[in-house]
């Protein structure tokens, strides 16, 4: 008991202070306000946690401070929005993407091919660049002519804002059939396939290390899957779009979450393998690289989806209205799917304040299980402590690095798509959330997983309570003054808390001492 106290003293003190803070906060407001603010704090904390946990896993294992994490969170949100509001764009994109991937899926075939070809020295130097150039030219020729249903940022009637507004009010657009008008279909398909094969071959030629290559069935399965997806997307394009449009918004939302998370995973893996990996010997440059990636990501989002903010429709499951709403208890809610529910006579939005914290809890527990109960988790935990030692034990740490990076970015994208219906989409959502996540991690301990959760909840709570008290004001004892915290105090308070915590405990609340 005594040793338990000593080991977890910081945590106990933190929880105690948190409890004292909550009790103090409860004195000044009504019961229902308190409950709503508590739930809102949990919701903000959950979204922050989804970003912060991935960030801390990446930082702990790879020692990479991924400052592009907020931008990837934002990209996840925008991708999810695209699937929900414009499924036909998503379907149209499937075929070209699958075709491009299929060239790279061949993977091990290229070294085999390269070892068969004898080349002169100058040819060997020139060939990869030439192949990549040809590939880029082909892509640049075909992709703009490929029929992809897209909005127009410049034209207001066709802009994402209008589509978002229409989707939110329940109207659906008619499906535009994808017709190959500017380029013939066989030419486009074969050209894309050729471009991807040439590009992948060119890239593989850079790697001159001799090694034995064995082709495994996995290569053929992956390329077969990619080609089948491409063909299905090509042939049943209009039917798929129509099907997605006719789909229940719950299922569409589910697909959006899936697509955004998987895209995040793919983006993360790609980013680690191509950009981060060459820089492990120069850690500070990795940091600068992620900064640059973040700037590029924001600009891409601005170019594709435009600058104005817009909303993502909530799934119908959480968006019911009518006679019986707001629901008074959960059975009632389940029957009517109301968008709000009454708790202590306060209206609580089900999606924002109950569903999101629940998802956060589920992710918290599942990642915890992954870390504590699986072999991969064991490797990650060992790698956080000493990755060289793990490598010396014969474990392919680099592969685990890629997986953890992909997982972290996937979590951020999941956070983005979940947060989009409640907070809306904007160009700056990534930066502000990254700052929140950084503060949460600094408070909780940079490499500590429970620390990420604790810090996120603390940050969310403090911000929401200060916002609430900004509305109702704090009566300062023994005086008549009512103090109303102003909006700038919301970020400033958490930043100050971070500075104070770091000055007292440089490793954060739950971080291990070096």
């Amino acid at each position, binding site marked *: 008991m005594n040793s338990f106290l000593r080991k977890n003293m910081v945590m106990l003190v933190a929880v105690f202070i948190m409890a004292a803070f909550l009790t103090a906060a409860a004195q000044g407001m009504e019961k229902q306000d308190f409950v709503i603010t508590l739930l809102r704090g949990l919701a903000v904390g959950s979204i922050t946690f989804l970003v912060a946990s991935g960030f801390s896993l990446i930082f702990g294992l790879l020692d990479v401070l991924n400052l592009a994490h907020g931008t990837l969170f934002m990209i996840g949100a925008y991708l999810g929005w695209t699937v929900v509001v414009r499924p036909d764009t998503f379907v149209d994109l499937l075929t070209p993407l699958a075709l491009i991937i299929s060239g790279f899926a061949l993977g091990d075939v290229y070294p085999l091919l390269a070892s068969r070809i004898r080349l002169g020295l100058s040819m060997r130097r020139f060939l990869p660049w030439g192949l990549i150039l040809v590939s880029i030219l082909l892509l640049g020729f075909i992709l703009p002519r490929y029929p992809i249903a897209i909005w127009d940022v410049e034209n207001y009637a066709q802009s994402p804002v209008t589509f978002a507004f229409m989707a939110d009010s329940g109207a659906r657009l008619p499906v535009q059939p994808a017709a190959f008008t500017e380029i013939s279909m066989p030419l486009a398909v074969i050209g894309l396939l050729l471009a991807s094969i040439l590009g992948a071959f060119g890239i593989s030629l850079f790697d001159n290390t001799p090694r034995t290559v064995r082709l495994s069935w996995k290569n053929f399965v992956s390329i077969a899957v990619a080609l089948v997806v491409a063909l299905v997307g090509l042939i049943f394009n209009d039917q798929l779009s129509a099907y997605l449009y006719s789909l229940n918004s719950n299922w569409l939302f589910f697909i959006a979450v899936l697509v955004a998370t998987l895209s995040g995973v793919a983006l993360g893996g790609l980013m680690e393998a191509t*950009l981060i990996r060459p*820089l492990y010997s120069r850690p500070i440059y990795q940091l600068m690289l992620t*900064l*640059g990636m973040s*700037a590029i990501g924001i600009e891409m989002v601005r170019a594709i989806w435009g600058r104005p903010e817009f909303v993502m429709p909530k799934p119908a499951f959480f968006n019911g209205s009518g006679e019986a709403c707001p629901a008074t208890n959960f059975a009632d809610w389940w029957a009517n799917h109301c968008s709000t529910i009454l708790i202590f006579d306060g209206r609580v939005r089900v999606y924002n304040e109950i569903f999101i914290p629940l998802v956060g809890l589920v992710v918290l527990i599942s990642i915890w299980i992954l870390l504590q109960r699986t072999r991969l988790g064991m490797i990650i935990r060992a790698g956080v402590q000493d990755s060289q030692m793990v490598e010396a034990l014969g474990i392919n740490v680099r592969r685990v690095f890629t997986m953890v990076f992909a997982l972290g970015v996937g979590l951020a994208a999941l956070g983005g798509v979940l947060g989009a219906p409640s907070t809306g989409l904007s160009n700056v959502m990534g930066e502000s959330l990254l700052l929140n996540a950084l503060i949460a991690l600094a408070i909780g301990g*940079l490499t500590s997983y429970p620390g990420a959760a604790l810090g996120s909840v603390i940050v969310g709570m403090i911000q929401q309570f200060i916002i609430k008290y900004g509305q109702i004001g704090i009566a300062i004892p023994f005086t008549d003054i009512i103090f109303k915290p102003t909006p700038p105090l919301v970020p400033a308070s958490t930043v100050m808390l*971070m500075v104070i915590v*770091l*000055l007292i405990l*440089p490793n954060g609340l739950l971080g291990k001492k070096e």
Partner: protein
Amino acid sequence: MKTFFNSNRGAFITLLVLILLPFLVGLFDGASPATVFINGSGQSKFIQGLAIEIFILAIYAISFDLIFGITGMLSFGHSLFYGVGAYTTGIAIKSFGLPLLPTFGLVLAAAVVQAILFALVLPRVKGITFALVTLGLGSVFHILVMSSEFGPYTGADVGLQGVIVPAFISPANERLRFYFIMLAVMVLVYLVYQRFVTSPTGRVCVAIRENEGRARMLGYNTFYFKFVALLLSSFTAALAGFFHTLYQPIVSPNVAGMGFTVTALLIVLIGGVGTLNGAFVGALVYRLLDYGLRRYIGESASFINGAIYVLFVLFIPYGIVGTWRLKSLQIKQGWDRLLEMFGR
């Protein structure tokens, strides 16, 4: 004397070009040196303005290079130094009506205060935690500047405007004088920095960057050396901020934000980390690139900026000056070979 000139040939030629620049541009534009001298409007005045901006950026970037490139402390709150300088100047002149000299004294005092603020944090946190704490301090200042409570002084999110600059240094009417003052300040800052880095104190700072534990084992109290570097850096950045307020009609709150720290990082990276000269080259390239891209491409300029940033990190990690120094022998050999080819 001759060897001194020879070994610093590049520096002297650059200085000469910079002194003659307003008149040369004037000549190309068809304006006589006399017109340039009385600040007639024209291409020369515009180029002077661009050059002044580059000088201010370079002074700011070199101050970042001192603590990041030379001493090896990664600070994400560097824009605080610049922002405090800029806002102190603006508020002192506009709201309190102070003359220029006391304002300058106030800026220096503010620079000492913020260096002490950072130094309080220094012994407790290292590496990435230091970066986070400085980020926190920087964003608190940014938030304060943006808040509506201080609006009458700082202008909140619109920015500080309407600062009445003394007539003898006014950037609108006496731009040539402003240009030469900026040039002199920049040269002075460069000489001080060069002297500092080659001094024993500066050498210890480099040692701290390379291996702080070993520097401490050798008996140096690394805290003092870091503090001196911070102090000098803070002075210089506040100086840049001081001139920023005098030159720009509006002090936007962006200069106190995280983005402006990233600008310093980008400039230093383009020029070469830890090279001092790199800050000048980087500022030149950065500002011209930014100007050119914004003019000919428009809003997506920062996309290309980001791409250049990534390309530099991946392929030219030592920056322009750093790569030049590394490869100078090869470049010289190649040059000789070229001359030989044409000589024969």
